[in-house]
């Protein structure tokens, strides 16, 4: 459903991503792993139009979306959960979620209520806090709001940047459980994640980035047992 060809991008004058090819098949989950500064976040931000694409192309569901800007991409069915959550802190939880449906041209009062109901069913904690100002929630709850907000756009592809960052194990287990449910419904996912084991265990295939290039890719299951990956990212005990 998503096909990236020879993507080159960077920030300022610095080229950080040097020609990446990557595919996400219909309704599948793909992980991007690699060291800090390997260009994973730059890559994700370029796909979703937050950073300018220098060259290469991006197609989504057969349509060329290379030149679309971030808000237009949201409207074609790609939702991005950004690094560091970026929730609208002064607004309450429900307004944050409602804004997630902004990209949907076909939204109605009824469809929004239905979607909200579904998010509250996935994250029951958010229902309890629906009138609370988002900035006062814990990090884990804010991440739930960020994921819920992205789901409100009824995306067919979800881009997740470091969903486990700064979260207690219990919380990221809870969030990944929800993500697995979403995947089961056929939503594709592209996950950038430092927690390599978590990423590989929850995806079908994975790409290992090294200094802005794909160093390795294949089925996640194979990478879990791959010696190079094990040595570089999984470690033994510390």
């Amino acid at each position, binding site marked *: 459903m998503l096909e990236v060809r020879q993507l080159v991008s960077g920030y300022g004058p610095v080229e950080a991503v040097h020609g990446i090819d990557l595919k996400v098949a219909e309704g599948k989950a793909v992980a991007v792993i690699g060291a800090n500064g390997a260009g994973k976040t730059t890559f994700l931000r370029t796909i979703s139009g937050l950073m300018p694409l220098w060259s290469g192309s991006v197609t989504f569901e057969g349509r060329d979306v290379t030149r679309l800007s*971030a808000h237009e991409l*949201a409207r074609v069915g790609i939702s991005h959960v950004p690094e560091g959550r970026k929730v609208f802190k*002064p*607004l309450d939880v429900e*307004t944050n979620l409602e804004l997630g449906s902004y990209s949907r041209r076909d939204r109605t009062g009824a469809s929004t209520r239905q979607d909200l109901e579904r998010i509250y069913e996935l994250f029951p904690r958010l229902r309890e806090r629906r009138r609370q100002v988002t900035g006062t929630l814990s990090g884990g709850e804010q991440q739930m709001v960020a994921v819920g907000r992205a789901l409100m756009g009824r995306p067919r592809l979800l881009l997740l940047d470091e969903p486990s960052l700064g979260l207690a194990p219990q919380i990221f287990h809870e969030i990944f459980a929800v993500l697995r449910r979403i995947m089961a419904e056929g939503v594709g996912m592209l996950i950038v994640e430092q927690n390599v084991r978590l990423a590989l265990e929850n995806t079908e295939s994975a790409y290992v980035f090294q200094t802005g290039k794909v160093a390795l890719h294949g089925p996640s299951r194979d990478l879990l047992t791959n010696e190079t990956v094990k040595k570089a990212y999984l470690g033994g005990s510390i």
Partner: protein
Amino acid sequence: MSDFLQLLVGAVTLGAIYALIALGFNLIFAASRLMNFAQGDLAMLGAMVGVTLAGTLHLPFSLVVLAAVVVVGLLFLAFNLGVLRPLAKRNATLTSMVMATLALSMFLQGAAELIWGRLEQAVPSPVGSTPLLVGGIVIVPHYLVVVGTSAVAFLAMFFFFRRTLTGKALLATGFEPEAARLVGINPVSMVALTCFLGGGFAALGGLIIGPITFAAPWMGLSLAVKGFAASMLGGLGSLPGALLGGLIVGLLETFGAGYVSSAYSDAIIFLALMLILFVRPAGLLGSPLVTGEHF
């Protein structure tokens, strides 16, 4: 007692105007986090449009209001597209952007002097000048126009921000511009909308203060600083804050002039502003989560 009530009427009227200017200021801040130094001069321009259209051409007031709001709104929108956006694209600093609004302020004042001259000119009120007597208090009929216009503007904005998704999207753009884009909000159109509305409300404020104070090219600075004061007192970016702040500034100015001395009324406003900010650094109704930007 009747002295007090008489002053109160004047204070509320003046406050309603400052609230409108603060409203425009807050709208622009809400989406683009920009402090607009030209806010007072946009109001001046509104008053000047009134001088020509209502004073010279005797057009009906509703048409004058419409023209002032649209002309000034479009002018600030054009400034946004022609100057602010190119600056933003070059990653200009916030200081540069604020300086650009200062340039606009100077430009408008100079241009107004060339078009309308330096002298004070009258803006006719749509409702004549025969004062009404209510329980011993003199009410200039135009005061009702001022309070009514302001009330309608605030009600419309309350509805916009509390009830419509577009209004909430506008706030979201200011809080987290990137995340706003990711949920499909086009920041360019949001900023354009606030520029139009912000300019329009300033013009409305200037147009309706005209019949009370006269209109002159140099009136902008005083309106701007009082608009700033109202906005900060209430809390930057807060809608009820603009209303409350405007009313407080109106009260301080009128009662300061009435009970102390008109020479000190500005000093009283700004002393109160300083004291309130020292106690509440984000204004009376401002959210500590929406702080002023750093330079």
